[in-house]
């Protein structure tokens, strides 16, 4: 039986599963990363994804177009992010409290709104909604193995990987990105160089909201084609955790996100195998976050002890 599982892990089907599961986590990760590199810890990714997932499905239902759904999701995501800046920068509240509040009531608000539209509290199954499909890339799709990996993926998965590259270019190769990173590394230095720190932080949070929203939209419009209660289930937090592990390193950010997705896929295989208690198996991805974070902090602790850490 264990052989079975190991065999599955090394199969193509499993790889494709990881790619599908990685999309929302990577969206969440780059969302957390852009905000963090500008000096703002965005821990509201999870709730933004929830709002966006619901907004996307409702947008798609009302307009009859999946793309309009994505746009509505993105707008809602960015507005939620800007709401945080409004409360923290304009009204002077502690941004972390706002974000905790958002996370706390996100699920409940989503269900409340869902109920208004469908009369149900569990899912949007009764709404006739449109969803985005997959993209087949000509020529490539006929190449064995490569074709399976690079062709036939969900639309927003392609958008995700394009954004991974674009975000890197903007952050590390353009003046805007350099200024944003400067705000995160030493806001006073950025300020005295004549940079409007507050404006850039708002922008970075809006971008963060945009990425998180795409992650939410992927779940409801592209991948599951339906909104269900609690569907984000910690994927936003995994993005936040990946950002914590990356500690400013973009490559390790993406790698961490992929590792988390791997464990999510593993947990799905185990849970389809009835001989394991499902609750325990369902905990695998979260346990992996816990264990990886612990290992990373222990390693960092000893690096500091040995005096090997450079000044940021």
């Amino acid at each position, binding site marked *: 039986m264990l052989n079975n599982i190991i065999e599955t892990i090394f199969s193509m089907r499993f790889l494709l599963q990881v790619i599908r599961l990685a999309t929302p986590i990577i969206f969440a990760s780059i969302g957390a990363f852009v905000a963090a590199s500008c000096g703002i810890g965005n821990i509201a990714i999870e709730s933004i994804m929830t709002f966006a997932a619901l907004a996307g499905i409702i947008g798609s239902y009302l307009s009859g177009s999946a793309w309009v759904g994505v746009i509505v999701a993105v707008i809602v995501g960015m507005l939620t992010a800007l709401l945080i800046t409004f409360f923290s920068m304009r009204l002077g509240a502690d941004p972390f409290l706002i974000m905790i509040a958002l996370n706390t009531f996100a699920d409940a608000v989503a269900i409340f709104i869902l109920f208004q539209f469908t009369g149900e509290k569990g899912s949007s199954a009764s709404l006739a909604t449109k969803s985005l499909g997959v993209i087949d890339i000509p020529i490539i799709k006929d190449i064995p193995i490569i074709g399976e990996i690079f062709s036939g993926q969900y639309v927003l998965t392609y958008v995700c990987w394009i954004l991974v590259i674009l975000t890197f270019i903007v952050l590390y190769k*353009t*003046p805007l990105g350099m200024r944003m990173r400067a705000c995160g590394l*030493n806001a006073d230095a*950025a300020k*005295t160089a004549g940079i*409007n720190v507050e404006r850039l932080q708002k922008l970075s949070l809006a971008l963060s909201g945009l990425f998180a929203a795409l992650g939410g939209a992927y779940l409801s419009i592209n991948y599951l084609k339906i909104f269900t209660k609690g569907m984000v289930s910690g994927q936003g937090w995994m993005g936040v955790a990946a950002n914590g592990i990356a500690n400013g390193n973009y490559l390790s950010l993406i790698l961490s996100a992929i590792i988390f997705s791997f464990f999510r896929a593993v947990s799905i295989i185990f849970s389809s195998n009835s001989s394991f208690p499902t609750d325990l198996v369902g905990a695998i991805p979260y346990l992996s976050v816990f264990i990886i974070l612990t290992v990373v902090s222990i390693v960092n602790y000893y690096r500091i002890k040995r*005096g090997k850490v450079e*000044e*940021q």
Partner: protein
Amino acid sequence: MKETILKLDNVTKVYPNGTVANRDINMEFEKGEIHSVVGENGAGKSTLMKMIFGIEKPSSGTITYKGQEAKFNSSMDAIHAGIGMVHQHFMLIPSFSIVDNIILGDEPTKSIFIDQNEATKKCQELSDKYDFELDVTAKVSTLSVAKRQKVEILKTLYRDAELIILDEPTSVLTPQETEKLFDQLRQFKQQGHTIIFISHKLEEVKKISDKISVIRNGVSKGTYLNEELTMEQLTNLIIGRDLDSDMDKYKTHEDFNNEKALEVKNLYMEKNNKPVLDNISFAVKKGEILGVAGVEGNGQQELVKCITGLEETAYTGDIFICGNRVNDFNIKKRRDVGMAYIPEDRMNDGVAGELPISDNLISTYYTREDINKKVFMDTKKIDEVSEELVKTFAVKTKTAKANVNSLSGGNVQKVVVAREYNTNSKFMIAEQPTHGIDIGSEEFVHHKLIEMRNAGAGILLVSANLNEVMNLSDRIIVMFDGKIAGYFKDANDVDESDLGMYMLGAKRQSIEETGGALND
């Protein structure tokens, strides 16, 4: 006939809480001069500079720059107008390269990308033009303090600053580095730049300035040509009385049986695979002040952290405080065996700014029996103790219940010194005890340190301020590159430039010679 570049007319700044930082300041700066602005902490120099640089707006009065009224909304406007400022605390990003730090905010681009080649070329040319001897592709985190300052100056030159404000630029430099900086400032002057120089160090002000403006309590005490002022007159203008700077005459010489307050043996520590403390051995006897001179970043900080117990990196060697081996002691235990500590970063490590002065005055010995009754604190006694300390240390405040944040830098330092003084410890580490505070408070702190010394405390004085080290110390060691590079048995026989040579590594004593630091 010289042309006026900057003119202040009746500039007044009143903060929303009613504090008057500047009142009716009138000053005139001419193109191509080095013009110093001096005054005590809290006299209003910084506020004035912030107004010139656009960070603050004057409440009334006008600032005229190049013949036009300057209404800067932010430092961006000031930078565009051609004003540059080198802040006392460097505004650099250590993990960025020199180039990136310089171009930040005004990046050369090729389509939407930063043009790194162009940027590097421009910065290198600029550095070479002024003989800064920098490799502009290096990361700032790898640079010495003096080089970081050069980067700060390059930042202003890159933005074509005509008027450069330097806020306490020499506070982190050795005499030789200061000399070099002054040469460069003179070069800038030749090329028509105007320099506003802010400093506490009056010798330096006298050395470099064409003109000197004095501010006291927010009010201008006039602008003078350098040559028409003597040192005594200048001091008198700044603090309103004469200064008493000869500390030696206050020292008494009692015998404390050569007992050692601190003994450090073969201390060794690595960071980034490089030794930052390399076999350090010395002792501080009771009733003496041992001065540690050195350019910042040569191991002094790590040394202090090892002794106080703040260091997290592993090290080898032995540390004894009043005869107890304290390597495995936590900070509280070290204090219990007789350590007191005046930290360099007073706002972060020295006080809790949001709490009242009274709480801060007992925070390192709050478990002492006279103020701590088994369950509750004896608030009455604490009030007594703190009122007393506020009085004897002349902390400028209405009440000991006020928050520490409401005090000026010099007064915060007095709170820290008062607290540590009141521990009656036999060993004290004073780390940059007068860094960035005015000469009046400085004098006061010095007197208190001497008083503790006379009462039999051993004091380890770590300071980047050479005058302070030379004035206060009985013996001196110089740290360079993690080692004790020089040891002087009698601080009175040391000459400043000689000390500077050791600080820069140009001279170095043998192990036998520096061994006296432990054994004398």
